[in-house]
């Protein structure tokens, strides 16, 4: 039905978006690749020529590399486990008949709309502060010594903050998926005498598996690059330096652009591996 005329018009309409995104992707990417092969210290001698793969080797052999990988995996994994597990439970609860469902939904979703710097600061000061934080008051009320959250349990504290931010997202998506479940199927299983746990395991969970996969993939992409939550709470201290944060420090704090860029290339490769799986699912959905 599309004529030659409308075809070329369509191409013209697409052009601005395509060209802009192409530029946005290629220009910085090529620059990062270029810097990653060079010894480049803007404040200490500037650009000192090609060193080829030396930065790549130095980045992975530096003593902070593997700890940062471990921290990244712990934070991403921890947040995923918490948000998916609680998200499944919460979405099932929210799907039940109750009074004031709309209001509860709003309460549960709210943390997603809080800007990262606010949630990090509010948790850091008003909840996790060892003297004046609410947790400290709570601990003292039970006669326990308050925990110095951000230096004693730094990674866990960050997982807690980030999970609070992302639980609404997981819940909302899983709720959308659960609402598309055919309730007759569940009722039939109930009448046949299937106990609740079996109904959950054999009907609800398989139905949710696709939504869970999508939640995991999308959250992983975003979680791999969390920044503000660490920037405001620990500043990367106490073993909370993720790969993203390490690269940020190399580039902007110690101004070793070559080394940081090599790290950036690693981060891009890592994110692309995750993205590949996500794209496959999204792409399949486009066909149907």
């Amino acid at each position: 039905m599309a004529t030659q005329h409308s075809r070329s018009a369509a191409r013209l309409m697409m052009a601005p978006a395509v060209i802009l995104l192409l530029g946005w992707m290629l220009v910085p990417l090529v620059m990062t690749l270029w810097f990653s092969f060079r010894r480049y210290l803007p404040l200490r001698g500037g650009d000192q020529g090609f060193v080829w793969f030396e930065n790549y080797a130095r980045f992975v052999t530096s003593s902070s590399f593997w700890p940062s990988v471990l921290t990244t995996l712990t934070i991403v994994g921890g947040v995923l486990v918490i948000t998916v597990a609680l998200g499944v439970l919460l979405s099932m609860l929210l799907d039940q008949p109750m009074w004031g469902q709309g209001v509860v939904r709003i309460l549960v979703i709210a943390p997603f709309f809080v800007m990262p710097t606010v949630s990090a600061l509010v948790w850091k000061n008003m909840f996790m502060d060892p003297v004046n934080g609410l947790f400290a008051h709570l601990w003292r009320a039970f006669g326990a010594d308050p925990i110095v959250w951000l230096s004693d349990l730094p990674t866990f504290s960050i997982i807690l903050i980030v999970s609070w931010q992302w639980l609404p997202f997981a819940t909302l998506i899983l709720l959308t998926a659960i609402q598309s479940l055919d309730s007759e199927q569940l009722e039939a299983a109930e009448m046949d005498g299937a106990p609740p746990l079996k109904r959950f395991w054999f009907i609800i969970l398989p139905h949710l598996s696709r939504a869970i996969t999508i939640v995991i993939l999308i959250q992983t992409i975003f979680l791999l690059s969390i920044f503000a939550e660490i920037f405001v709470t620990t500043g990367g201290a106490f073993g909370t330096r993720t790969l993203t944060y390490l690269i940020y420090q190399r580039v902007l704090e110690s101004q070793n652009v070559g080394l940081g860029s090599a790290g950036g290339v690693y981060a891009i490769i890592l994110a692309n591996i995750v993205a590949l799986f996500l794209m496959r699912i999204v792409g399949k959905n486009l066909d149907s």
Partner: protein
Amino acid sequence: MARAVTPRRKAINTALAWTVGILIFFPILWTILTSFKTEAEAIASPPSFLFFDWTLENYGVVQERSNYMRFLWNSVIIAGGSTLLGVLIAVPAAWSMAFVPSKRTKDILLWMLSTKMLPAVGVLYPIYLLFIRLGLLDTRIGLVIVLMLINLPIIVWMLYTYFKEIPGEILEAARMDGASLRSEILYVLTPMAVPGIASTILLNFILAWNEAFWTLNLTAAGAAPLTAFIASYSSPEGLFYAKLSAASTMAIAPILILGWFSQKQLVRGLTFGAVK
């Protein structure tokens, strides 16, 4: 989905769900409450929940000392500007992909999405350098451009999924009646597309408002939006709970309200149509 349940079961559900809901919402509630306390009451032990002398003083002090309005204005300009610019560029693109699809449409859509997956930190220095060279560092226009570009894939995708739902027959009928491409867009499509465009604008405004990587790294005093303003409270000298709470409340209140309107679009916008 109204299933028949006993009133007792419904009461239990309600109690459980409200408890969980309030627990999750509590940090926000606590921030709002603390913003109305005096600094002394904010750190009182044991903390008072509702029975304190309510005061509006903190809100005045935050504005007076830090010129809060300037940061708010930066946030509005940056989030609003990047969203509007993004929509202007994305509408024609999404329109053509939805109504004049070609063999490559799917590939282009997926490729656009893949640019969104590029970790920001991987291109931090190039962007930083380009910003210095182009004189864009710490300017609102610079952030408008960057945030527009990082959200453009989401905007295109959301619009595409909305446009896709407009039945093609309507277009054909209009064409049969001799409507030109221009009047087709203006009188047939636009009215049907307005709700989708509105939700896209809403969600992307929220995303841009809360963006906290580029806004922290590419601004100093001049163009800093609320994300950076709040981050400045993390230094020890800024540790005043009541004022921090007042500043936080003002920074999140508009978005909380907008967010509640956009909860349905959130799923569509952030899962790229993969969950409906």
